[in-house]
């Protein structure tokens, strides 16, 4: 069970990896994405994207500012305008 997760900014591709779960700060509330999630397209607010590499692992957090999250057949893509660090 792996979810393909991509995080891209206008300057570069920050992440492209297989993970267990990602929690995305959507405009209307945070939502977790696992493999096989139904297609969703959402705007995101400034906040933290939490990446769970495995089910039991501590989440890794990435600060993002402004953008979109898209869940499709080939996983989750987060288009962020700016990524901290």
């Amino acid at each position: 069970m792996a979810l393909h997760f991509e995080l891209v900014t206008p300057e570069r591709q920050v992440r492209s990896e297989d993970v267990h779960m990602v929690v995305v700060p959507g405009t209307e509330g945070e939502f977790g994405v696992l493999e096989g999630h139904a297609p969703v397209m959402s705007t995101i607010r400034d906040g933290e994207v939490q990446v769970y590499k495995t089910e039991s692992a501590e989440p890794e957090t990435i600060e993002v500012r402004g953008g979109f999250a898209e869940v499709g057949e080939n996983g989750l893509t987060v288009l962020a305008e700016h990524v901290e660090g």
Partner: protein
Amino acid sequence: MASLKELKDRIGSVKSTQKITKAKQMVAAAKLRRAQAAAEAARPYAERLNAVMASLAGKVTGDSAPKLLAGTGSDRRHLLVVVNTDKGLCGGLNSNIVKETKAKAEALIAEGNTVEFYLVGKKGLAPIRREYEDEIAKHFDTSAVRNPGFEEAAAVATELLEMFDAGKFDVAHLIYPVFKSALAQDPTVQQLIPVPTPEEADSSGAAVEYEPDEEEILEELLPRYVKTQVFGALLEIAASEQGASMTAMDNATRNAGELIDKLTIQYNRSRQAAITTELIEIIAGAEAL
């Protein structure tokens, strides 16, 4: 004929010019690699954004479509966003962009439209001001920043969007060079506002859930799309500048080399002529005794 000393000085000055052009060529080659890498790194974002745009634009049509997508209903007032470099020493790059801009402006004016200019970069200002002094709406100065990046692109796009919201123009075109290779950078005219609807049809039949909803997402997406386009143009101009500079400086270095060879031959000839004259004088003097 120039004296020996004059020739020697001339050779010296051409030699130091050659040193400068050679250094600039090598700097451009190194910077070109970096600029190309930056342009490539930006591609995934633009591609993703395009794909999302394509799938959304088809869904939101008719009256609910935002102004940025549908236009103002008129196409009389045009704005040309022209992206030039800040520095010279890059061959015909800037003059090609200006030429393209003038051609576009003339075509639009001939159709009875009004044209204004929004200039990015220093080198386009003077030649365009010469002909269209009153039509320059704004000049965005990028010369203070070393490598114009997304922040500058965002600033330009925000300003364009404000002008659009204030009803200052109906259609905006972006004019910038597309980097093909170090030898070829083609000036391109691309429609920026209203955002052209991507043709790519949405192939996945899956029902996508939208949060908040299509209109609001599109409302957010369009300004971002404009920003990305401007950012792309800034990256292209950076790569084009270095590429054109590299080629121009390579030519200049070669020309300087040829000139040095020619001057050296001339120098040696005059030196020999001087020696021969001196010898003849000595011999003639000796014979006279």
